[in-house]
């Protein structure tokens, strides 16, 4: 600390100004990369994101994903032409699995997005406000939590009719309470932190505190949960697809594919195997990623 430091205005490069953040990120990257399972998760997630983004260009038979078929090549086992074999309409399963990634990830994204979008504000309000507001919100949330998610979603989709939109609506309805609970619990603990009191003593308004202090400190568990939930939402959507309440044909959706394909076990094992493996790997990827993120962002929090 020299005197010049104190008098001359400081002009720093970007790298210098953000040195601490860069170091933090490097630390995250280092910790994350040190774990094999986290990296595996990251690779899987990137792989499926890429499939979702470029699926139609990657699929060897893109027309098979929009309803074209080839009855002459029904139920062919995996071969050079059809790596994953063909289904009961002669469509290329690889192409359908690839393009199905888009549907599944989109569903996952929508469900977690809507769930978090509803749950986070409610959770923060409930946690910070306390009193009647909290009681009301939490009562309502607990009501939803006590209802078995899949059964409720099933009932909703059965009432609304099958289809991706209805599937998303149903799952979003059962998904948000988890976020309320998580964020509320986190808010309750962050609220007690001295820096919140400090901000209050500076005369900060409630929205300011929620936005600048509570929310940023809730992000870690939220990100972890969202990553995990991406996987779980995809799984739930596939489950609905399996019961027969998922995406409408000809849109390829993994759960719906398995739902059809299960009748073709075991002789045409590839039909159900590959979509099943795709679901498994995607969900696995997001879970490993979430787990890895938890390790670096939020090592002490536990699964809720």
């Amino acid at each position, binding site marked *: *600390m020299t005197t010049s*430091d*104190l008098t001359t*205005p*400081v002009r*720093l490069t970007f790298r*210098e*100004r*953000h*040195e*601490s*953040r860069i170091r*933090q990120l490097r*630390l995250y990257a*280092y*910790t994350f990369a040190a774990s094999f399972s986290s990296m595996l998760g990251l690779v899987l997630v990137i792989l499926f994101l890429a499939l979702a983004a470029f699926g139609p260009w990657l699929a060897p038979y893109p027309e098979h994903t929009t309803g074209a078929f080839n009855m002459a090549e029904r139920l062919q086992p995996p071969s050079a032409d059809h790596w994953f074999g063909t289904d009961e309409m002669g469509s290329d399963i690889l192409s359908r699995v690839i393009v199905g990634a888009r549907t599944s990830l989109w569903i996952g994204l929508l469900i977690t997005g809507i769930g978090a979008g509803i749950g986070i504000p409610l959770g923060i309000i409930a946690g910070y406000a306390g009193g009647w507001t909290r009681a009301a919100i939490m009562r309502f949330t607990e009501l939803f939590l006590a209802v078995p998610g899949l059964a409720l979603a099933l009932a909703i989709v059965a009432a609304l009719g099958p289809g991706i939109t209805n599937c998303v609506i149903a799952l979003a309805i059962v998904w948000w309470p988890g976020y309320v609970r998580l964020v509320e619990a986190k808010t309750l603990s962050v609220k007690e*932190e*001295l*820096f919140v*009191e*400090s*901000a*209050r*003593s*500076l*005369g*900060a*308004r409630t929205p*300011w505190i929620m936005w*600048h*202090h509570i929310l*940023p*400190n809730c992000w870690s568990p939220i990100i972890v949960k969202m990553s995990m939930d991406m996987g779980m939402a995809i799984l739930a959507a596939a489950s609905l697809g399996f019961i027969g309440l998922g995406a409408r044909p000809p849109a390829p959706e993994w759960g719906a594919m398995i739902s059809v394909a299960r009748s073709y076990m075991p002789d045409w094992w590839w039909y159900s195997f590959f979509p099943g493996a795709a679901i498994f790997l995607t969900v696995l990827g997001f879970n490993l990623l979430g787990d890895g993120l938890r390790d670096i962002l939020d090592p002490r929090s536990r699964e809720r």
Partner: protein
Amino acid sequence: MSDLLEIRNYTLDIDTFDGPVHVLKDIDLTVRRGETLGIVGESGSGKTVLVRSVLGLAPKRARVVNGSIRFDGTDLSSLNDKGWKKIRGVRISMIFQDPMTYLNPLFSIGRQIGDVIAAHNRATGVSMSAAERRARSEELLDQVGIPDPARVCDQFPHQLSGGMRQRVLIAMALSGKPDLLIADEPTTALDVTVQAQVLDLINELVAKLNLTVIMISHDVGAIATVAKRCAVMFRGEIVEEGATEDILRAPQHDYTKRLLAAVPEIDAPLAARDEREPTRPLLEVKGLSKTYATKSSGGVRAVDDVDFAVSQGEVLGIVGESGSGKSTIARLVLRLVEPTAGAVTFDGSDITALNGEALRQMRRHMQLVFQNPHSALNGRHTIGDAIAEPFRIQSKLSRREIEANVEKLLDTVQLPKAFRYRYPHELSGGQKQRVCIARAVALKPKLLLLDEPTSALDVSVQAQILEFLRDLRAELDLTYLFISHDLAVVREICDRVLVMKRGKIVEQGPTAQIFEMPAQDYTQQLLASARKTAPSSLLADAGLAAAQ
């Protein structure tokens, strides 16, 4: 006296993301049987790692680079699990800092002591029935001065007070009749009066059981009460070693000198205060009470009918042990906590009646500085953001103006401007406290409430901060309400002092009067306990002891 413990050229690194940190550098230390050794050092000096290494409990990523530790002829570094069984708790045992976290909350006291005894029995081949173990547990508890040991045996840790828990831990440490007892900051988490009792107990036990003791502490006074010999650690090295008395009297190393100088002295002559004309009171508190509802009827009266006033420009100290309600007063004054009853008049207006915007506006005139600067700063914000926050909340300044103000404030608290881009966890405790103060004074408040602003800091840093607070007061014409448990600190900085106990004011008056002629028993008791660990008074004792 034979050598019981011999540490030779001990060097230990801890691997971190940024490369290895040299935690212990070439430590040489010998402890002879029957000796009491103190190790003094501030946080980060490596003293805890050192004593834990003796028990083979070094941190996970630690790596011994060089050196050896020999205990009674055995090389400890070559021991396996089985070997340790014969050492830990049986021959070397340990007392820990925070008695709450070091007791398992789910098991009864009797069970925990009993299990330790059973483990020792297995290690030494003695057999003992459950009833015998129980009897021995009670005997141990009795030995450490716990009344009604039979009842305590059936209780759980959360049902005991801090002092009692520390006694339980000591009992556990003694259960194996160890040759060497290591006490790791045994008094740090305790109140002054309890501190004094625990230190007395250790001394008593040392005398009675002829123990060999290593005690580590950041508190020179505490060390001096127990240890006859003393080592000073600084950044992983032992900078000075010798008889405690000699070191206190004539420190050789620069660091030791600085350290001793920084210790606030309870009986130091009072600095000449600039005598001010009594001005109008800035803050007046009347009949202030706060009751927290509990499940049992009545509730807890955290603050009970308190009256006091702070004049413009004055430093009012509030002293009390934990649970005395002193922190609650600060929060009540700021209306961070709603009072149950009473009035707070600030600058002529009753703030208990304020609401919403008016309250928000009022808050800029009173600011609070917290005990723990680390948790008072949001870890997700840069220092720049943290200091800018008051402006963004309370003013309509442009981004550029705010930045200018932030740099100016960093100047004021003597931190480099580049700190704007740093995050709190990268700063030391003293630096963080400066940032907190910068935030507090950003809006040019009239009153600063300081809630134990130095108690989480090392002594040398504490001295700096206190110095800085004094300067700042002069510079910005501030009024302080200074809350502390540390009598010496209060004496050093305050004009007037208010002593609290269980939510009530016991005594208040000018500093000199309180410290020299305390009227109340409680105040006298506090002062006596504090003097017990004050280095100056120890010198006299030590001299006495040496003379005997």
